[in-house]
């Protein structure tokens, strides 16, 4: 078996044995599944609120929720992917590369005729399979719950959209796991290795979107997009920060895929930006020199 496949298998085995990682995986799967129920309960209540408002003669406006698709119930999952999923992917990525440096197994592995690129790509492939399995389990259960709520199985078109959303989630999570792998390879201390990607994640998820749109940090955790400030400064800055706000691009593309009526446009540009980040991160991680992989950890 070649280096790539052995490394991938090794990574999957290690993740299966890491109990701490299981905690995050369980939280993620649980929340994605719960998001459908939360979406349904909220929708029922809001429809009730609208009917009460209409009965009291307080409005003549049409019901803003008329004709929402069954995928509406999955929209909270978008937030859980970028919130819990991203942090889970970072932890998995950090552990993948730091584990070998701490135990000095990299020295042993690299004493064999092993290419660093094959080794790192193998580890990435292992993590990719783990992430794909977690996403697959979460959204299969979510699909069943939405079908139960809907009273009928989701159609082919809607199922296709759920699959597209799964693929997009995988791209985002793999990018963050690469970020974790990178800091796991580069940091001298375990705390720094975990903290630096968390700080980068928070800057990307909260600070960048705020600079370009004046959106409040907490409002970015709501699947409904915040009303952006426009004009002058904001038009210019959002042109620069917009493409760098990976999490906002993910939210936008996912909302379009899941047919959220509050987001309009085409998901292509956002998807391409996400794929570009995945490619760049892969190249950066794979280019890690051999001596860096073998460097020890100070803690």
């Amino acid at each position: 078996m070649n280096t790539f496949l052995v490394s991938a298998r090794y990574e999957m085995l290690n993740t299966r044995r890491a109990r701490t990682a299981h905690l995050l995986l369980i939280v993620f799967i649980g929340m994605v599944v719960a998001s459908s129920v939360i979406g349904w309960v909220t929708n029922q209540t809001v429809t009730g609120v609208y009917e009460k408002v209409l009965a009291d003669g307080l409005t003549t406006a049409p019901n803003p929720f008329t004709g929402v698709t069954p995928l509406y119930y999955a929209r909270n999952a978008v937030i859980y992917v970028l919130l819990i999923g991203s942090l889970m992917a970072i932890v998995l990525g950090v552990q993948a590369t730091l584990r070998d440096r701490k135990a000095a197994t990299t020295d042993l592995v690299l004493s064999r005729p092993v290419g660093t690129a094959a080794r790192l790509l193998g580890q990435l492939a292992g993590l990719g399979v783990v992430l794909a399995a977690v996403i697959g389990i979460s959204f299969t259960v979510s699909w069943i719950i939405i079908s139960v709520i809907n009273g009928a199985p989701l159609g082919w078109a809607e199922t296709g959209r759920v699959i597209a959303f799964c693929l997009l989630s995988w791209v985002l999570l793999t990018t963050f796991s690469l970020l974790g792998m990178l800091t796991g390879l580069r940091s001298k201390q375990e705390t720094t290795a975990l903290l630096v990607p968390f700080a980068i994640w928070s800057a990307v998820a909260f600070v960048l979107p705020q600079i370009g749109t004046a959106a409040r940090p907490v409002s970015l955790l709501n699947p409904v997009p915040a009303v952006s400030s426009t004009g002058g400064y904001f038009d210019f800055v959002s042109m620069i920060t917009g493409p760098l706000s990976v999490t906002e691009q993910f939210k936008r593309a996912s909302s379009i895929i899941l047919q959220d009526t509050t987001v309009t446009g085409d998901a292509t540009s956002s998807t391409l930006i996400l794929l570009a980040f995945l490619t760049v991160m892969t190249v950066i991680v794979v280019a890690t020199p051999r001596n860096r992989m073998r460097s020890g950890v100070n803690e």
Partner: protein
Amino acid sequence: MSSTWVIAQKELLDLRRDRLFAVLIGFLAVATLISVAVAAASFRTQLDAYNLYVQQLTASGGTSTPAAPQLFPLQLLRGGVEYLEILGALFAIVLGYGTVAKEKYRGTLQLLLSRPLARFAIPGGKVLGLAIVWFVVVALMTVATTVAILVIGNAPLQGIDMVRILIAAVVAWLYLMFWSSLAIGITALSHRLSTGLIVAIVVWLAFVLIIPQIGDTMDPDNQVPGGLFATLQIQKPDELKVLANFAAFDGIRNGLEVSSITKHFERLSFAFLGIKDKFNQQPLGFVWADMWGYAVTLAAATLASVIFAVGVTTRRNVQRKIS
């Protein structure tokens, strides 16, 4: 000099030399200052749009001009408070974890434990050290944001505004102490150091991000951009009357939110700073009468967290740790 104070001094010295700590606090300060600048820019954009509208209205012969947007300086701090509730809590966890982990990594734990120290000297000293550090950090950030409001926001502050900012600073200090102490306790209890950090981060994820997020997305008014009731053109009194019919749902939603310490911090800060419309420009007595329950729970939670940290950081627990 008591051994607790010696340990606290050592913590202060360690943190003064810690580059990671400096980077984290620098990051938090920059994010907070950016939020003030962005909020000020957003207000100026609104004002420009208003002036343009009035000009066009006057040119077209219109007479009834709408009310101009009004700047309430303390509302510029909203983003800063939110950064503190998310990032501040995360960094507080890292600091709390670091105080226990570094002794093990550096091999100084055995040396410390070889000295004739009182039962609570080590955890007490560490908590005291962190309390002083957070006091200094909060004080510096308070000064920085106040200057930012005056200079970047170009907004005047009254004496009462300073009192409100000071109250918010005390609330922030309690909140950060809660998370640092909790992280000390969790790290002391965990068999592996990295497990301690990851478990603390999972707790942070649940109580700072997930629970408030669920509450927020269950809010009927948060279902469409700009707000459901604004979209349906419904006035506030009518909104409250309608929502009274959904008291059970709102009770569950609010119950979820208040189960998170973060919401107590947020509601207290927003109330005293007048960020929440209901409390804007209201006397402090009015705010206190409505919010004292949150102040009590935040203080009680912080005290409980400190007791937890001091209680579980025992000689036996810290010695069994695996790197």
